[in-house]
């Protein structure tokens, strides 16, 4: 494992987005992972439609919440093409699902894998290197007040309630940490990111980890 790795350095991670007052973190994390997986394969790094997942993923609840793994299962089973955000822009509320003709361009999920990597965060780092940014679910209650630094206390692996995207890790300092891309805008945390200590399953970050294939 390298001491430091960040998919942002490879220009395959879009800028942080803002879910506003919509509980759609589960959709933002999945769509961001699809965007990066496509870019790693050489596709353009376009913003894809989060609203399409919010409106059409019938096994979830839109802005009232959902499961990233449920969304990935739905995308994989339906082979739905995620269209560009410009085609189906985010409006921070539930709406009627819009359908597009088969000729519409887009990115579909060819598969995904999800594992519990607790106590195996080095293996999780290898998965990040191999497959790209990882969708994780954390307990983010204490993130309400977060301003910066490495989260290592006050963040149990209790009840997972927030979906985010891990884009990298840094083990060069005294405290190794994950680089975690959030969806609360770039004025939150460290330009929209949080640093979470690697090891010890802080915030439950390793409990449910998914990699996406497009």
């Amino acid at each position, binding site marked *: 494992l390298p001491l430091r790795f960040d998919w942002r350095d490879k220009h395959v991670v879009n800028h942080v987005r803002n*879910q506003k*007052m919509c509980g759609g*973190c589960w959709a933002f994390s999945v769509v961001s992972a699809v965007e990066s997986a496509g870019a790693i394969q050489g596709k353009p790094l376009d913003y894809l439609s989060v609203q399409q997942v919010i409106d059409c993923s019938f096994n979830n609840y839109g802005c009232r919440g959902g499961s990233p793994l449920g969304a990935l299962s739905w995308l994989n089973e339906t082979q739905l093409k995620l269209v560009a955000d410009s085609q189906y822009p985010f409006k921070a509320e539930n709406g009627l699902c819009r359908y597009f003709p088969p000729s519409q361009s887009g990115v579909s999920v060819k598969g995904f894998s999800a594992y519990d990597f607790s106590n195996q965060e080095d293996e999780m780092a290898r998965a990040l290197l191999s497959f790209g940014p990882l969708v994780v679910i954390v307990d983010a209650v*204490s993130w309400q007040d977060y301003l910066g630094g490495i989260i290592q206390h006050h963040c149990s692996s209790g009840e997972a309630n927030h979906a985010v995207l891990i884009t990298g890790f840094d083990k060069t300092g005294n*405290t190794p940490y994950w680089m975690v891309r959030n969806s609360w805008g770039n004025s939150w945390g460290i330009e929209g990111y949080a640093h979470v200590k690697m090891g010890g399953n802080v915030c439950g970050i390793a409990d449910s980890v998914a990699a996406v294939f497009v």
Partner: protein
Amino acid sequence: TWPWSPQREAAALRESLNRHRYLNSFPHDNSTAFYGVNQFSYLFPEEFKALYLGSKPAWAPRYPAKGQTPIPNVS
């Protein structure tokens, strides 16, 4: 779905400031997280959770440790 009022916002901010003092009070090195006023400080924790923490937990199988391969059922 909470009734907005300046009094409610002020009460939420006071509660946030108390929480920040507690969270920052632990002995820590200079890399540890620090907490303070941000765009969510005017919300009570239950409001913040209802609005922004919308993911459901999802079970995932344990990642097979290195060298460990699932043993086929042998009668």
